[in-house]
């Protein structure tokens, strides 16, 4: 355990903070206050948070400190602060999903993820920025303005969970919750030099997660270290009877796997289709180095082919908009959130239409229109139906690849963080950011992104994606922790230490 003493409490990782609290060196109130102070100091530049729940956070922290003083048994993350993506409901706390249409809405209930965080004594600092309804890869599509990448404030922090990733990289919180529909946890992790995990579909309850695409969405842990992600994963995962798609099976022991950190004898598959052309030179270079390290650590590196991955992006952009067009229908101004045009004369249809016109941003409208079209009578089979077939083929590709390898790896994103504004008007270029992350969402298995260095040409973080079969989330942590340890040993420090001072 690293001593906490030297200066900045907020820079410590969650496990270190927790150990210091358990050892009586520091209180949750102090740790929480340190994060709140950091938010005050830097969030004006970063804009990771949409809402900081200051008083409630300190109150929770005080409660934990009191409990601890009575000698009560507390969970491993009790008292540790966390940033929550603004797509998960929290009783009485604003939940906007980055959209104007939900401005001012305070949900009357806790999501299961929040309930489990509360039960574990985790201190929720507030809600983080995101692309509107999680549609985007840059957080530029937030109705409340973009989040900036702490590595370079002119660049995007990834998306849709750019707020959560930036909060970690800016040391505003040691832990965060993201949601990943096509890469929204992993791509922000990659471009901010942090760790992000998309658990197996059904591994973490979706109850209270405002749906983008129900069959793809999955909440997961975001952290600065693999062990922290594992500790958080263990808190939020597990069966929930309120989510029919939740898996009723034991959660793999991810914390033990992160401690194990041994890849000797593991077969690691390089996915031929996820790399090469279209990937930035520095990304490829760091990836190749990481592969070599895994080999040095005793893993058996093999090449595998997943030929149907090339159709993944096309299938994804039919399935996602189809489900989203239906999931977002309820935002009609009738029951909650924004209402426009209710002048006592306009018909209910007119009010619905005007509310949606004013309340949704352009990317949301684009996807609703795409999805509405794809589900329309006469087009359904050609679009939604075909996309579901591709989904089956991709699942089979994974199954075949996992016959040859225990985990698969690829670069997480084709490039490092691009400049704010660079791709915002080019949807196709934006969509290509998720080319390597989307197959996992379509197949429902799990994946992690971990930092593997900085691209030489721009000095920005590069992420490596580890993919494992459904319900084998522990393998991600075993490989991720081994690689992380080897890299820290090589660099002599964690990559995140290289973030420029804000």
């Amino acid at each position, binding site marked *: 355990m690293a001593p906490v003493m030297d200066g900045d409490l907020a820079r410590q990782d969650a496990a270190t903070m927790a150990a210091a609290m358990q050892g009586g060196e520091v209180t949750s109130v102090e740790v929480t206050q340190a994060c709140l102070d950091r938010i005050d100091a830097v969030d004006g530049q970063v804009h990771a948070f949409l809402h900081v729940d200051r008083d409630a956070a300190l109150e929770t922290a005080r409660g934990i400190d009191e409990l601890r003083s009575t000698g009560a048994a507390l969970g491993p993350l009790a008292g540790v602060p966390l940033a929550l993506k603004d797509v998960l409901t929290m009783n009485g706390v604003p939940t906007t999903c980055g959209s104007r249409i939900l401005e001012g809405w305070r949900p009357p209930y806790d999501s299961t993820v929040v309930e489990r965080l509360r039960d574990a004594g985790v201190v929720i600092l507030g809600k983080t920025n995101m692309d509107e309804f999680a549609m985007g890869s840059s957080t530029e599509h937030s109705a409340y303005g973009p989040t900036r990448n702490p590595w370079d404030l002119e660049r995007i922090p990834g998306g849709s969970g750019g707020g959560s990733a930036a909060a970690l990289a800016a040391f505003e919180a040691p832990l965060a919750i993201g949601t990943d529909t096509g890469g929204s946890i992993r791509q922000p992790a990659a471009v901010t030099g942090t760790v992000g995990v998309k658990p197996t579909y059904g591994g973490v309850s979706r109850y209270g997660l405002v749906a983008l695409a129900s069959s793809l969405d999955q909440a997961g842990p975001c952290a600065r270290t693999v062990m922290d992600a594992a500790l958080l994963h263990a808190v939020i995962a597990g069966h929930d009877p309120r989510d029919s798609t939740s898996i009723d099976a034991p959660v793999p022991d991810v914390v033990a796997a992160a401690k194990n950190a041994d890849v000797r004898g593991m077969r690691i598959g390089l996915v031929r289709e996820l790399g090469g052309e279209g990937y930035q030179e520095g990304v490829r270079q760091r990836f190749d180095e990481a592969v070599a390290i895994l080999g040095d650590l005793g893993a058996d590196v093999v090449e595998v082919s997943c030929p149907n991955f090339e159709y993944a992006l096309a299938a994804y952009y039919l399935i996602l908009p189809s*489900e989203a067009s239906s999931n977002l229908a309820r935002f009609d101004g009738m029951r909650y959130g924004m209402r426009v045009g209710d002048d006592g004369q306009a018909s209910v249809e007119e009010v619905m239409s005007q509310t949606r016109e004013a309340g949704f941003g352009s990317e949301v409208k684009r996807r609703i229109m795409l999805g509405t079209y794809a589900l329309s009578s006469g087009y359904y089979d050609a679009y939604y139906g075909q996309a579901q077939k591709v989904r089956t083929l991709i699942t089979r590709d994974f199954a075949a690849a996992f016959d040859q390898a225990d985990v698969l790896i690829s670069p997480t994103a084709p490039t490092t963080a691009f400049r704010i504004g660079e791709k915002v008007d080019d949807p196709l270029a934006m969509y290509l950011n998720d080319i390597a992350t989307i197959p996992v969402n379509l197949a429902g298995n799990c994946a992690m992104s971990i930092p593997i260095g900085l691209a030489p040409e721009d000095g920005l973080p590069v992420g490596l994606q580890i993919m494992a079969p459904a319900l084998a989330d522990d393998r991600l942590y075993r490989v991720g922790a081994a690689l992380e340890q080897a890299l820290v040993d090589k660099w002599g420090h964690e990559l995140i230490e290289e973030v420029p001072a804000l």
Partner: protein
Amino acid sequence: MTSVVNTRMDFDQALERFEPVLGLETHVELGTASKMFCSCATEFGGEPNTQVCPVCLGLPGSLPVVNAVAVESTIRMGLALHCDIASWCRFARKNYFYPDMPKDYQVSQYDEPLCTNGYLDVTVPTDDGPREFRVEIERVHMEEDTGKLTHSGGDTGRIHGADYSLVDYNRAGIPLIEIVTKPITGAGALAPVVARAYVAEVRDLMRALGVSDVRMDQGSLRCDVNVSLAPAGEPWGTRSETKNVNSLRSVERAVRFEIERQGAVLSEGGRIIQETRHFHEDTGETTPGRSKEQAEDYRYFPEPDLVPVAPSSEWIEELRTTLPEVPSVRRSRLQVEWGVSDLEMQTLVNAEALDLVEETIVAGVDQAAARKWWTGEFTRIANEQGVALADLGITSAHIARVESLIADGSLTDKLARQVFEGVVAGEGDPDSVIAGRGLAVVGDDSTLMAAIESALAEQPDVAEKIRSGKVQAAGAIVGAVMKTTKGQADAAKVRTLLLAHLGVEG
């Protein structure tokens, strides 16, 4: 709304020229304690928006979970309708915007219903006696109900033209099953009664299965009535769909009206427009709703928030073996047990008196008396007041009590009818009515004797006739006694006392 004058063709003439084809879609609320996808209560009549939660309000982030009892109820109904039960099926989303739908889509079933291909035999009365008619069932599926809108202002009671509308989501998410028939052909002039008998049979079946109490007055059964007329030699015509017909009588009237209306249109060389229509209870007519010529696109797709429903064959077989007696079998059994004719049985069925009579017999009343009360006096009162027999407030215990009072001579038939009048009027149970109205038979011999003696004194000539053996003259004295006792005497007893008093053999 455009005003439409409906021209009608004589029913019999219409049937000479056209063959009616029916299709019935019946929605019934299941009687589960909780809603289809959440644990909210389903009780009718709660304060608006008190039986709601994030799930049935469709709040962002909430997720549905299937009510296993609703699935079981649907399978049992499917089995009772002789359907195939799917081993694997899914829910689907039906997408359209309407303020009574919290999510702006309805979770229903589309191309993968739980039950398919069944039938239901119904019996309809004809001039040649009862005739059995087989109605083929296309499918039975599950879905959630919508909220209930109340439109205020405007004169149509519909959303267009209303000043404002109120919505109650207590009903949103109540489990419904929808039972869809295949086209019903060959009923000819019986089409309206077949439609009625079918809906009645569905209702009785659901009650017998205990899956719903089917309160039509509370809107828990709603029927969409499809009618088309096929010109001679052609298999089909264009159909109209009359929505939300919610009483047996209305179903029959709507079918009849549509046959007459469409007959008139077609015989004048017109064209039937495929459209939804509204039925008006007051006029017995239908008027056009929205046109379906451009079919609404509901963009159905499998509900991704729910896993498939996959009942095991063991479970299905277990449910099959525990099905109760179906109404048609029960009717045959009761008819034999009670020894009644087809016609009498039809009368009991039409009066919806079967359950009531059976309960009354169980309460210890002689079966003939039970039938007589329910199909006679009570049916008359019910018709007079325009309420259902079951809602008169008369219980089998009331009848048992009154019958025992008749048996021991405390009441006469005439008095008993007055007792039931009192019960229906809300004066309490039979004993309370008797006490309140002072209806007990004047059974005290000395009181009766005094009345007899005074009647004899007033009519000495009649007394003499009786004494001389003209026993039939006793009626005048009995009548006078009944008059002085205000009908509260047992006439037979008066007569016996009178004859004994005069020493004449009865």
